[in-house]
């Protein structure tokens, strides 16, 4: 049975694959590269960081409280490096939580917001001002900029979620017969002109885990990892992934652990 040993074998295989693969980075003769570089250099997503900061420290919600007492795993209000270790197990909720589900817990418990209301607004419409959760997620993650992803699987529930995420990554369903791996299992692949990140490769998965939340050029708002997963299932013609659900957290745990060592740099810029 693939217990610990199988896990190592899988990592080793992934590594061997890295060695042979050419980097999928923009090359000099890439006709798209010039534009991508120009856009990424000046990222409008930065305009959301200040907003997220003021939302974090403002007294808000029915309980008129700020988020300063929110514990993202490093102690109440400690944000430096917090997202580098997420998802992780939280004893108070007895759950493995990612950044956004933890934020949701705090907005409900500390500020008294209604969970369904926050969830309903969490993913903003394109070409809007964006949602509070998007701005907050960006601000909180930006406090880990420059730090390395360092997710641990020391709690049994973290292991369970990791394995669930792996299972989901390869689980095919729906009328397109897609799992994640159909589009993200090989190097240098594109859907139309859009690059598909090679997530069974260390470099690829590191790029994923270190660049969200990101400014999405086509939507003109900051998007989060929860949105990224929701949107993938939408394109796969599957039902709508519930915000902050265990399924989403399992996939994020799987990806983030694989991406350990990546240096966080947000906001990312996506086409």
């Amino acid at each position, binding site marked *: 049975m693939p217990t610990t040993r199988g896990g190592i074998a899988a990592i080793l295989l992934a590594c061997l694959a890295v060695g042979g693969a050419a980097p999928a980075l923009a090359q000099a003769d890439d006709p798209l590269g010039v534009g991508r570089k120009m856009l990424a250099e000046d990222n409008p997503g930065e305009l959301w960081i200040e907003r997220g900061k003021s939302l974090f420290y403002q007294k808000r919600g029915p309980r008129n409280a700020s988020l300063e007492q929110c514990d993202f795993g490093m102690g109440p209000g400690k944000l430096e490096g917090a997202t580098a270790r997420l998802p992780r197990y939280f004893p108070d909720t007895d759950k493995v939580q990612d950044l956004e589900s933890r934020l949701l817990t705090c907005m409900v418990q500390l500020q008294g917001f209604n969970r369904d209301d926050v969830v309903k607004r969490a993913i903003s419409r394109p070409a809007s001002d964006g949602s509070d959760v998007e701005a907050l997620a960006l601000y909180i993650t930006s406090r880990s900029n420059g730090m390395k992803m360092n997710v641990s699987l020391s709690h049994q529930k973290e292991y369970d979620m990791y394995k*669930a995420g792996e299972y989901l990554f390869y689980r095919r369903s729906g009328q*397109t017969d897609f799992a994640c791996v159909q589009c993200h299992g090989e190097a240098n692949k594109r*859907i139309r002109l859009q690059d598909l990140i090679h997530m069974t490769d260390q470099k690829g998965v590191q790029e994923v885990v270190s660049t969200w939340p990101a400014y999405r050029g086509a939507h003109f708002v900051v998007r989060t990892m929860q949105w990224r997963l929701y949107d993938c299932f939408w394109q796969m*013609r599957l*039902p709508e992934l519930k915000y902050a*659900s265990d399924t989403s957290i399992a996939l994020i745990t799987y990806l983030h652990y694989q991406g350990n060592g990546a240096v966080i740099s947000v906001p990312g810029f996506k086409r």
Partner: protein
Amino acid sequence: MGKACLKWTMLSSLALIFAGCATYPDPATTRQMTEKMVSEDFTAPTPALLKRLVQDRSQTICSRIGDAKLTQEEAAEVVKLARASIQYPASGKLVGDWKIGDNLAHDGAGDRIQGGRLEKRKENGGLCQNCHALAPGEINVGNVGPSLTGYGLLRGNSEAIAKLTYERIYNAWAYSPCSNMPRLGATRHLTPEQITHMVAYLLDPQSPINKR
């Protein structure tokens, strides 16, 4: 590169060993736990649409984790199920109108669920452009699947080729079990008539895909 990679592997294995007591659940437990999550974590406007998440036998076989290989028996079962799934158009004609096929090949919409609503369209797009190079010189095409440029030029347009092409679009797994290619006819994403138009788009000498 190789060295850094090895180091990373060692660190990872150390982390796993130090974790000590925590062990991965066995695959059956993971499957049970995760399938429960999937059954609870999605919403759809109707219960019928929610069923899209339920795997059929072939999808279950084809969801292999990591580099696990298909056994011969599994591959044979997938091929057998695929062959049995293929239905032909009522007219019996496998080659339709390449112009309609051209439009379909470049249409990536249809049947998605967002905001509690199903995307309403007369018919679904064929999705080809997402993954395959099409007519020569087209820029906005994907490369997840093989290039289809000059498909008919290379193969001719005999009846046998038309039948093979139809079947490969209807259910690619009849020929390549568990490949990345969606079983577009078998999953009812496309109708048999739509597939005949795509066959024409691939084979007709007048089709842009066969222009030099």
